[in-house]
């Protein structure tokens, strides 16, 4: 393998620490990634050199801040190949972006309309739609994808003339599988449904081209792609963003206000009420630049090879059940019959290994798999082969310790 993560690790000082006297092994990247120095520096630089409120103009610092803030929008637009920066709306993260769409489209929904999502969704791409259905009398329907993520012809029947919204994840956070995105989007478009793609688990790993995807909305979080927390993105096509009723109102999103009425600002500002998360946007832009400067194919191949390594080692163990695919994924999700994932997690933690145990905010999917939860090791570009192996070794140790004679 040509790629060497060791030099990249210099950019992530947090990784070179001990956890309970063991070298820290961070394999909880699907929850949040660590941040490179360039992101930390960009945030520091903002506060040290040009902190001011944006768009209120009129002085040196504010002009600087505004310029950098709008450059950040442009950087993000290029990162996902959005046609223009006005298509990029800042949000707190994926969750808020989905809520912005769910509230914004409410006025277009009628009783009997259908909202279609898949069975692989994170609660963030489920609960907002379920609640929207409650409020409008629309029906929430579930496309029962298999855990392999392949398209089956019978899925087509789930898309009907009543389907007004189709929302799907690109990659499952719980089991790492890719959904059959293109086939589903094609169906949704044939039925004139609004389409939303949850890219939270995709952006850190796969180059994204929203124009090629041709979805109406694409959403993601900064913190899962080496950027800061508290910032995320709602991308939308012009017509799709135009029909959204602003989910929040107040300052910054208006052009003119009287006591009788308000004239809203144009996009993107119409959907961004209040002082934005300026440092977050600047940090996220730095994260986009960090990724753009890498050989992204090499990074992805590396991350996939680590997941594959774990898969091949553990798959041989008859008592380990693996729910993630063998290939083309950057995480491994597993369980061991008769051993609680929390117990496995506790032992891994005691050895300095950070993973995630539980239902991964996907209760219905866990029921579908017939487990209470899984243990998930998720990889990022800075993880090493030694770390992947150490995870396997310590997991097997944990299984030994937790198995009753």
């Amino acid at each position: 393998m040509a790629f060497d993560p060791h030099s990249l690790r210099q950019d992530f000082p947090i990784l070179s620490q001990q956890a309970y006297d063991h070298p820290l092994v961070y394999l909880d990247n699907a929850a949040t990634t660590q941040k490179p120095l360039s992101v930390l520096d960009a945030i520091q630089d903002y506060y040290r050199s040009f902190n001011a409120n944006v768009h209120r103009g009129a002085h040196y610092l504010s002009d600087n801040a505004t310029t950098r803030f709008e450059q950040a929008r442009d950087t993000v637009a290029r990162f996902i190949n959005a046609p223009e920066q006005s298509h990029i709306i800042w949000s707190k993260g994926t969750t808020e972006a989905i809520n912005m769409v769910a509230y914004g489209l409410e006025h277009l929904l009628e009783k009997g309309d259908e909202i279609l999502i898949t069975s692989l969704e994170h609660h963030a791409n489920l609960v907002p739609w379920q609640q929207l259905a409650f409020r409008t009398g629309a029906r929430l329907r579930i496309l029962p994808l298999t855990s392999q993520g392949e398209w089956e012809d019978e899925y087509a029947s789930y898309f009907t003339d009543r389907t007004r919204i189709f929302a799907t994840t690109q990659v499952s956070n719980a089991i790492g599988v890719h959904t059959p995105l293109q086939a589903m989007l094609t169906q949704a478009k044939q039925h004139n449904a609004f389409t939303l793609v949850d890219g939270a688990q995709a952006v850190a790993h796969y180059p994204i081209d929203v124009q090629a995807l041709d979805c109406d909305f694409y959403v993601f979080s900064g913190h899962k792609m080496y950027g800061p927390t508290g910032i995320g993105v709602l991308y939308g096509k012009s017509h799709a963003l135009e029909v959204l009723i602003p989910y929040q109102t107040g300052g910054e999103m208006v052009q003119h206000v009287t006591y009788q009425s308000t004239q809203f600002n144009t996009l993107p500002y119409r959907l961004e009420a209040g002082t934005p998360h300026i440092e977050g946007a600047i940090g996220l832009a730095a994260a986009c630049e960090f990724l753009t400067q890498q050989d992204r194919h090499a990074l992805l191949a590396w991350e996939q090879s680590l997941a594959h390594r774990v898969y091949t080692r553990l798959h041989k163990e008859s008592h380990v059940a693996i729910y993630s695919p063998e290939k083309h994924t950057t995480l491994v999700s597993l369980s061991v019959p008769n051993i609680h994932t929390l117990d496995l997690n506790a032992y891994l933690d005691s050895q300095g290994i950070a993973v995630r145990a539980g239902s991964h905010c996907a209760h219905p999917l866990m029921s579908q798999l017939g487990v209470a939860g899984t243990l998930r090791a998720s990889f990022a570009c800075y993880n090493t082969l030694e770390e992947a192996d150490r995870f396997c070794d310590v997991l097997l140790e944990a299984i030994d310790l937790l198995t009753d004679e």
Partner: protein
Amino acid sequence: MTDLPPYNSIKQQLQACRSKEETFKALVALSKRLTRLTAEEKTEENRVKGCESAVWLIIDNKDDTYSIKADSDAKLMRGVLVAILSLVQGKTKTERQKMDLKDELESLNLGSYLTQSRANGILAIIEKIKK
């Protein structure tokens, strides 16, 4: 039930742990002392809400004899339950209500095995025991 280790020895053992790994191993060892509940006893009614792992608690409060049984699907939690059962078994209601269970458990040096996500569950168990 009767073969639960005495609480003081459990306390000594846990307080002597010097690392997270040692505490893990001590809890695993303790977990083996628990008399497991039968499938019939693991009812929804007996289940304690708020635990990340499933925990069942059966308290028989008739007469003056207080009997308490518990189980969990997670082994470390079973270890914690052994400590709790050993602490309260044989105590009268007034004695139990006078005890600061939470304080006592915190003195066991269980660190993250007791805190955060598990804490709500432990509090719920304590509530149930105090009744």
